[in-house]
């Protein structure tokens, strides 16, 4: 049918290959390490760069972190003294200390951090609609050629929101088939399993076989499968679902209880810790892009990084007791575990929130939103080991060298996976849009 040909055209995939020059990617990508899987540890709320990876010990009291910079395994790059385990693996990471944008609200900045596209406005409650850009993982599952039993794009264990759901977590105009395989269960709970992979009560394999037999019987009568692509598409999804339901490989990937106790403890028996462990298992099983959300809420005593210091939620006590220990337990563990398994060369850990925090400490002894300059972290895959890109000014207020925008981060992520950032997709108005409008940060490529 001609409509199907038009549907192909709509994707814009063939377009970019056929009409636009794509030589750049192939030429430059030759001989480089390639990222097969990205684990995006999304730090909801906006972590303070000034109390973690971009310490400024020489600023006046009103600006200075109560923490001290401590030397790390990367010479000349001290980090916060409350991250001692992290300090040991700094020689495996790249920091980008000059990320900046203009979005001061969680949802607009969050969308920017999840999609690499600037929102149309800095709206506190940006609406999640098909007008907005898809999640990184949706783009990757559309453009990457990997096909396995594990869904290409997985996300868990929260849907993040600040009031309304933050856009950028779904496939948006790319279509539902590129939505993430979302796991809403807590991987830290005993008996963690996916409801999708559990048959309803009383329906065992014998009954499932009866059901399939009956379905196939009716399908054989109409022969719709032979004639109609829609029918075939439905059939393929059913086969895939049945395969996932019965596959030991899939079952194993999601079965955290098969993991040695010691490893589970190393990641920490927290929702976030076990989510990072699950991410490693899914990377091993062949997923391409994994979003792990740190917290469903922006802030609070056991929420995200939104440390204004509001009453009963004082910044530094929460940093001391919760945010920093949790980070110091999980992030280095994940990096080392990947390395131990020989997966770090093909797996890129990307640690980033939606913005940083104000250089000046506010009158509640907290820090407010600061998109003008903040730090993100990469470890593994096609990104350099032990490197710092970009410099912030004396107070960590603005980039003073090599400023980087969120779209440059997306361009770099796609590029390191072998996907041309200039590849086009079509939005709901059929406008051609590059999957990233930014520039690849070439100095950080391994």
């Amino acid at each position, binding site marked *: *049918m*001609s*409509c199907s*040909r*038009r549907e192909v*055209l709509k994707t814009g995939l063939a*377009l970019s290959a056929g*009409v*636009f*020059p794509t030589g*750049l990617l192939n030429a430059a990508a030759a001989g480089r390490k390639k990222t097969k899987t990205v684990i995006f540890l999304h730090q909801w709320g906006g972590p303070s760069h000034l109390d973690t990876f971009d310490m400024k010990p020489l600023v006046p009291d009103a600006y200075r972190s109560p923490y001290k910079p401590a030397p790390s395994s990367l010479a000349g790059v001290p980090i916060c003294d409350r991250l001692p385990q992290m300090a040991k693996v700094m020689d495996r990471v790249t920091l980008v200390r000059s990320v900046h944008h203009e979005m001061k609200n969680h949802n607009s900045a969050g969308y920017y951090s999840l999609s690499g596209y600037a929102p149309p406005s800095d*709206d*506190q*409650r940006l*609406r*999640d*609609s*098909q007008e907005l850009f898809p999640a990184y993982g949706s783009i990757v599952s559309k453009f990457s050629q990997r096909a396995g039993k594990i*869904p290409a794009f997985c996300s868990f264990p929260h849907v993040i*929101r600040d*009031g*309304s*759901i933050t856009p950028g977590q779904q496939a948006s105009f790319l*279509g*539902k*088939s590129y*939505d993430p395989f979302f796991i*809403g269960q807590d991987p830290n709970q005993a008996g963690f399993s996916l*409801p*999708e992979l559990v048959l*309803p009560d*009383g*329906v065992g394999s014998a*009954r499932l076989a*009866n*059901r*399939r*037999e*009956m*379905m*196939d*019987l*009716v399908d054989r*009568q*109409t022969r*719709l499968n032979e*004639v*109609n692509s*829609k029918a075939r598409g439905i*059939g393929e*999804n*059913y086969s*895939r*679902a049945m395969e996932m339901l019965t596959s030991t490989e899939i079952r194993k990937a999601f079965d955290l209880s098969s993991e040695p106790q010691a490893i589970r403890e190393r990641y920490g028996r927290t929702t976030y810790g076990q989510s990072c462990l699950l991410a490693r298992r899914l990377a091993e099983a062949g997923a391409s892009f994994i979003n792990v959300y740190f917290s469903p809420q922006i802030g609070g005593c056991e929420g995200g990084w939104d440390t204004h210091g509001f009453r009963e939620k004082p910044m530094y006590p929460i940093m001391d007791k919760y945010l920093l220990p949790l980070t110091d337990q999980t992030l280095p563990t994940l990096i080392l575990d990947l390395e131990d398994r020989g997966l770090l060369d093909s797996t890129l850990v990307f640690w980033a929130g939606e913005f940083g925090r104000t250089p000046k400490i506010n009158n509640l002894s907290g820090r407010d939103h600061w998109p003008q300059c903040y730090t993100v972290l990469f470890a593994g895959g096609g990104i350099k080991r032990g490197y710092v890109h970009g410099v912030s000014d004396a107070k960590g207020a603005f980039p003073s060298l090599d400023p980087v925008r969120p779209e440059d981060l997306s361009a770099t992520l796609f590029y390191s996976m072998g996907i041309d950032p200039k590849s086009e997709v079509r939005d*709901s*108005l*059929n*406008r*051609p849009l*590059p999957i990233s409008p930014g520039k690849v940060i070439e100095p950080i490529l391994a």
Partner: protein
Amino acid sequence: MSFFLYFGIGLVLPAQVDSLSPNFLNEVAPILSLGGCNQGACHGGLHGKGGFKLSLRGEDPAYDYDALVKQAGGRRISNPIPSESLVVQKAIAKVPHEGGKRFKENSIPYTLLVNWIAQGSLPPKSWDPGITSIEIVPKEKLLVGEEKEFSIRVMALLKKGGVRDVTSLVAYDSSDFGLKPTLDGKVVCDEFMEGTLAARFLGKQAPIRVIRIPQETKSLPPFQGENFIDKAVYQKLAQIRIPPKGVCSDSIFLRRAFLDLNGQLPTPQEARAFLADKTPAKREKLVDQLLDRAEFSQLWAMKWSDLLRNEEKTLDAKGVRLFYDWIRRSFQDDKPLDQFALELLSARGSTYSQPAGNYYRGLRDPETRAEAFAQVFLGLRIQCARCHNHPFDRWTQEDYHRLASFFSRIQYQVLENNRRDILDKHEFAGEQIVWLSRSGMTLDPRTRQPLLPRFPGGGETLSGQTPDWLLELGKWVGKKDNPFFAPAQANRVWFHLMGRGIVEPLEDFRSTNLPINPPLLNALAEYFTQKGYRLKPLVKAIVLSQTYQASASAPGDPDDFGNFAQAKVRSLKAEELLDGLSRVLDFPARFPGYPEAERAIAVPGTGLRYSAATRGADSSMAKFLQSFGKPSRSLTCECERSEETTLGQAFHMISGPVIHEMLSAPENRIGKLLTSGASDEKILKEFFLTALCRYPSVQEENQVAVIIKRSADRRHGWEDVVWGIVNSKEFLLRQ
């Protein structure tokens, strides 16, 4: 329809291009389009590329002149050695150019550019290109068999009279990869197809429709019959030599009619009665019955609630119900659609006492209102023209903002707002008054001058004295001099019944997106107009045509390029699927937040939770509907409803809670039939009749007997058989 750009690299010298003394506007500006330099992905993007920005697709040649000649300290142009100019060197990739080689050395564009620079890179005497339109000759081309290539000419009609051949200076956008312009006015069509090639020159566009069919097809005999729809479809099919499929079986028709007119499946009794009826007019009789049922208005109220953004966050629960009821009653009364539009556009007052005002409650600024109005009622996507002239149509930024100006005086008095999330400015809970202020106009984004409203398509401009602009716009909707309304609505109705618009995408009428069958669209629009813009007569006419009743394609059928020779097979919509399960199992579904709704199609809102206060997860019912494509109604677009098939849907059907609850409920149809002591044969017939509108085959009966016998528990056996039926493609698809 997608369009993509072709670059003419290295054209031979044409007749009517003055390559010796080229003029910037007439010769140089067009080659920036021809070379693709000014497209969105390159220098035409918002920020340009490499510090060099051109206006998008050359909509502002004066700007482009400045960019070329004056910006960057004039370094792009070298008058002493024109061929060493940066712009020339980049275009032929003598110096590194991210966009690659755009022109060959000594090609026409190259020569034009170099000669223009050599003569001082002067601006034109006037910025008026002096053309009224462009035309492609021929307007349509049919290629048969191995015939793949033909010539076209593109003529610019000059204001001063006469024409100019601009064939070698136009840029092209093509709907299909197989359709390509080549050297100097040649077009090559590689595949058997039907497509459009659009030429573009200095802001003017002209399309040509190209069809290529295989040789072996035979000519069709002349059309026999009366039906105006079948006649128009047949005449087009005769042109591409593809015979229409025969009329479908009673079973298929029954299922189609129930789903398309009522969004529902028949009961076993209804199916049995229709199949047993031997009278010749039984299809018409069924259609009349279905048009009169409440479900008909519920189904159309659901479709229009999608379009009019009837959702809980902005309208609140009370508003959603009131708006839905108003919409549903309009369809129940078969209110003329222009009247429906007028009532929406002129709605004022409390959105609780004047429910039509919820239209504005959901559209909070003049631009969004104008875009929604144009898309829903006129079938036009004018969004592009908010920021720049529409790249594929005649709409200018001024047209856009003059339309928005109609809506610029809408104001809200928010009497109360008990929003659960105080930070969320999209959320409203409580009464609001929609009112008109006495002043206000949108501003021209370039000149910042206020713009009086003007009817789209070159109509009249209203004065500031007109008391109510929106009332005038509402009255204009159904007037004869509105060329957009009737075709757009006829196309929408056709889409909902046929699964594919005559113009596709549905709400994208434009000069470069031609209807696949213009006489058919005209005939439908005329019929709709004659019948006073009422829905039911149009629906009835379509459903009774042989075109609607055609069978779906079978193996070996030729490709009809979307010309309605065959019926389109589509997935059941989310609500149809859920209601279908509910009907088959005779077990009512329940919808959180809408206890009054007995069917998914009758749920007034989206049923989604959205705010911090209701942070809990959506109900399994809402998740089910969303997974199968129910839109969240945050856009004014048919496209928001997804028709995709996904892995998530398969899990809902295999291991999900919604279907399991219905299947295992003791008092469902399985339970009732087993309790009544019905035989296995009788039970199977009941399920087949309602789910598939047919009787089971002998083979199916025998195999089911085996499955039931094999099952340890007869009830479980039946649950499994029914699961198999409702997961068959025959159930999940509408053929």
